[in-house]
């Protein structure tokens, strides 16, 4: 026979921690009220036939909120074998209020006073025996966090369940109330289960319609009882519900005086919790503290050079890439053998990475310089003339060099080997905007040439990155007024670039090959040739897709770690407190902010957390808005795009969260002004839990659970998705293997819908495919991009190149638009499914989708159109459309509120 033990208690009293302790599972625990939304079951560790049920945290068994109704219906109709009532020992008065109600249900009950470690540390004393006598049940002290006393409490509850040991209901009520209750009990005897007769009597006294509706009492009797209730109300000058509540608390007050000894000294000294609170919810500091903590999180996670990016770079390039040295084992990973060459003393003694990286940042510039020179020459003299001339020059040069003669005057001299000789040359550069060819002298002295870079945005001044300049550092760029920043020794650059990478696995330390390298060698061993489907599956599916997603685990872990800390320490409830007024401005309560903060982690629990909002209208609105908060998976998109496109502005990442909040706020204001959502805000009566320092174990479990879920998702959802996408990329509609990606199934689908994305700046089949596949799981957007970008380099480099090819001048605007679009359109399919379920009707579900798609599209449209306008001054039809839509949005936000419909 299975025994069911229900865990009941106030929100935030440690039920879930106890549940985890008893069942050995790792459920999610947070330090704010209402974390547990659905009841969870688990079996007691060591005894398979005992089921532990974690009920949602409730303050009372009133009929007014959903969880309370769910809990009481469960307790009354399903009758668990026993109730284990968890009471927060640091807050005993309010917690025992629920206990007095539970005691009336007629279910065997054991009271476990939790947080005894904190009670003892505060110097308070609780007399369990006395408490037990007052409540007519066994009371034990436990500490769920350390596990002390938990299993004993469970065993006790088990014994009670087996013996069906029920205490008499405690004597809570006095005087005429008790008299009236006794009278009610008498008259309903036989009509309700005997063991819970007191509960029914009280519910009748309180005029609880839900309970009375289920009973068969009869109008006559009801009328008679009503008289008694009225008399009682008249005598005590209060309504029935208030009378019951007041008497309960009066009973508890007496009980607490008898059983609890408070440490008097402690009372007077300020608690640490209050001290923290004085800063965190300070009238002036509160909002800055909130913003700064968000910024700190993102600084750690995604800033250039911060721990998040360092680790992600390592994960992407080394762990999941070619391979890495075990720390502290690497030695003498030195440069190419010819480093001791007397021509290159500069590099002597440097290891390979330093030497080859020395001039790397300027490589692209040098290459550009050469290309531009070549193009300008061909332009002037005819196609292909440059190659001819170079060959002729080389011949002449080598002849002269053989004769030991100095060489002067040719325009080819700036190129390649000739650079080292010390020459003068004239270069032509094409002005990108006017097409005019400019010329300028290039001075080369003492076998050195310098390449400089001006401060202007690459190409924006029309000088193709200022490759035209060979002026020394500090002077002005000849084509724009900015100062030249860097000079690169061309000859040195040549040498630096010519070093061959030594094989890291041959004797430089303990070399651990990366996942990509392993996949490569696996293919080689098994005999999978490059270009086959299997090779594509392994390399694009695993390396290109899954690894791109897994590479962001460090960033995700830091974000989750931070959130876990904020949640566990008790800050989240304060955030609701701080934000309530703001949220009320658009008709929601600070409570709606909690689903939105949960949404920072994942949209699915966020949508479910909205259940704690009593008012259906507010719940729907919260659901629609909650998923605008960038979730963990969306953080991958943010992290990746910041890392690729906005490294220098890491605050873009934090900005995305603020953008999410802004959309929620403005969207809320606009929605509230529609007929469907107008009305008064739901009440905001909320406990602010005491701060506590979260345990390292708690945070670690919490973070690990989320990271694990993320990693599993990469395997269970992302991998199959990548496989399907690979197949769609490999085949054409006639199931022939395609040569060119552009002929693939994926490309044709993408091409069919790309018009939709064109105004957003990424109207290519790649952009379309990535955005659509992101609905599987948001991080798929990055995986798909990496797969469809093609190219030789790393996923990130290919994506950068792809966006640059899209719109060379405005690629950042397009990237921003892509990111915003994927952040703010409807969430992933799982979250959409939950949204439909929680909305309660298909029509509402579709409304949510339509609204979210509209918002996401408009935000992205704005980012691209106005970004482009700002960068290159382009104004098109869609810019006009963006302005019109914005005007509409502003109207929707700022129009006067129409007359509110009557509340439901």
């Amino acid at each position, binding site marked *: 026979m299975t025994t069911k033990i229900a865990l009941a208690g106030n929100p935030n009293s440690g039920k879930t921690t106890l549940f985890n302790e008893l069942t050995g599972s790792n459920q999610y625990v947070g330090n704010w009220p209402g974390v547990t939304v659905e009841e969870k079951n688990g079996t007691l560790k060591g005894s398979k036939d005992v089921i532990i049920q974690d009920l949602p945290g409730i*303050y009372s068994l009133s009929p007014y909120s959903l969880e309370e109704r769910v809990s009481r219906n469960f307790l009354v109709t399903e009758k668990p074998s026993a109730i284990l009532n968890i009471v927060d020992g640091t*807050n005993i008065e309010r917690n025992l209020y629920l206990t007095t109600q539970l005691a009336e249900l007629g279910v065997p009950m054991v009271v476990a006073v939790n947080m005894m470690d904190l009670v003892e540390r505060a110097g308070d004393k609780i007399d369990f025996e006395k408490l037990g006598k007052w409540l007519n049940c066994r009371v034990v002290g436990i500490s769920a966090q350390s596990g002390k006393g938990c299993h004993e409490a469970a065993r006790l509850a088990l014994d009670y369940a087996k013996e069906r040991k029920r205490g008499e209901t405690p004597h809570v009520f006095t005087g005429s109330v008790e008299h009236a209750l006794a009278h009610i009990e008498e008259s309903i005897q036989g009509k309700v289960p005997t063991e819970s007769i007191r509960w029914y009597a009280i519910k009748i006294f309180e005029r609880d319609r839900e309970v009375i509706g289920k009973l068969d009492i009869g109008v006559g009797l009801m009328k008679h009882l009503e008289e008694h209730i009225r008399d009682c109300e008249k005598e005590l000058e209060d309504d029935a519900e208030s009378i019951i*509540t007041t008497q309960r608390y009066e009973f508890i007050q007496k009980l607490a005086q008898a059983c609890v000894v408070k440490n008097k000294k402690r009372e007077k000294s300020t608690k640490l919790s209050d001290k923290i609170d004085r800063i965190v919810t300070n009238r002036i500091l509160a909002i800055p503290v909130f913003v700064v903590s968000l910024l700190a999180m993102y600084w750690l996670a995604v800033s250039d050079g911060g721990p998040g990016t360092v680790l992600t770079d390592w994960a992407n390039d080394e762990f999941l890439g070619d391979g890495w040295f075990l720390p502290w084992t690497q030695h003498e990973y030195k440069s190419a053998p010819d480093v001791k060459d007397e021509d290159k003393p500069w590099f002597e003694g440097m290891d390979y990475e330093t030497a080859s990286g020395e001039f790397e940042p300027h490589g692209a510039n040098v290459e550009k310089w050469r290309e531009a020179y070549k193009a300008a020459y061909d332009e002037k003299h005819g196609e292909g003339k440059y190659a001819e001339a170079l060959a002729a020059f080389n011949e002449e040069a080598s002849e002269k060099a053989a004769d030991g003669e100095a060489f002067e005057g040719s325009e080819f001299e700036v190129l390649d080997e000739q650079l080292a000789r010390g020459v003068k040359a004239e270069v032509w550069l094409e002005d990108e905007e006017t097409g005019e060819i400019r010329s300028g002298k290039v001075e080369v002295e003492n076998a050195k040439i310098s390449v400089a870079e001006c401060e202007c945005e690459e190409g924006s001044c029309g000088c193709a990155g200022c490759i035209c300049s060979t002026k020394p550092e500090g002077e002005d760029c000849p084509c724009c007024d900015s100062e030249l920043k860097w000079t690169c020794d061309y000859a040195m650059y040549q040498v630096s670039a010519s070093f061959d990478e030594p094989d890291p696995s041959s004797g430089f330390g303990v070399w651990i090959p990366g996942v990509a390298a392993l996949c490569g060698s696996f293919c080689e061993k098994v005999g999978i040739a490059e270009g086959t489907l299997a090779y594509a599956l392994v390399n694009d599916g695993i390396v290109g897709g899954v690894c791109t997603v897994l590479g962001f685990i460090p960033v995700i872990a830091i974000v989750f770690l931070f959130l876990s800390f904020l949640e566990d320490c008790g800050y989240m409830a304060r955030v609701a407190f*701080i934000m309530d007024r703001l949220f009320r401005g658009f008709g929601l309560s600070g409570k709606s902010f909690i689903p939105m903060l949960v949404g920072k982690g994942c949209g699915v629990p966020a949508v479910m957390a909205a259940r704690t909002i009593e008012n259906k209208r507010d719940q729907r609105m919260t659901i629609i808005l909650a998923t605008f908060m960038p979730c963990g998976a969306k953080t991958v998109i943010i992290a990746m795009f910041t890392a690729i496109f906005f490294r220098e502005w890491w605050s873009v990442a934090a900005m995305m969260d603020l953008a999410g909040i802004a959309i929620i706020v403005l969207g809320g204001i606009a929605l509230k002004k529609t007929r469907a959502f107008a009305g008064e805000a739901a009440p905001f009566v909320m*406990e*602010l839990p005491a701060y506590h320092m979260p345990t390292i174990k708690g945070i670690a479990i919490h973070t690990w659970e989320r990271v694990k879920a993320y990693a599993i998702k990469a395997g269970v959802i992302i991998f199959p998705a990548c496989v399907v996408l690979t197949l769609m990329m490999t085949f054409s509609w006639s199931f022939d293997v395609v040569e060119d990606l552009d002929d693939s199934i994926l490309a044709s689908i993408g091409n069919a819908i790309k018009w939709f994305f064109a105004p957003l700046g990424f109207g290519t089949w790649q952009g379309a495919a990535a955005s659509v596949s992101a609905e599987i799981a948001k991080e798929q957007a990055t995986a798909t991009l990496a797969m469809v970008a093609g190219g030789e380099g790393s996923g990130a480099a290919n994506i950068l190149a792809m966006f640059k090819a899209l719109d060379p001048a405005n690629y950042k605007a397009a990237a921003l638009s892509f990111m915003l679009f994927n952040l703010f359109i409807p969430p992933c399919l799982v979250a959409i499914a939950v949204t439909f379920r929680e909305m309660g009707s298909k029509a509402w579900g579709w409304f949510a989708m339509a609204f979210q798609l509209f918002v996401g599209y408009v935000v992205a449209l704005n980012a691209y159109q106005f970004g482009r306008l700002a960068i290159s001054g382009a104004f098109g039809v869609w810019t006009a459309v963006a302005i019109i839509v914005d005007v509409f949005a502003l109207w929707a936000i700022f129009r006067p509120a129409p007359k509110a419909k009557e509340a439901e």
Partner: protein
Amino acid sequence: MTLNEVKVGEKATVVRLTGEGAVKRRIMDMGLTKGTAVAVVKVAPIGDPIELDVRGYSLSIRKDEAAMVEVRMKTFER
């Protein structure tokens, strides 16, 4: 007077609750019943809600809801 009129740092005793239904019941369930001692601890940055100290814990409540709680100032106790 009502609870929303109590200044930060001041203490009061609940006399009775006006209003009815869910909000009233919730306020009572959270421990604000007749005769309860309550202190106003602070006000949120934008002026609402307020934080109360009641029955040894912190409760946050909006001013609108606090207006439903009739109180008497506690002058005899410091």
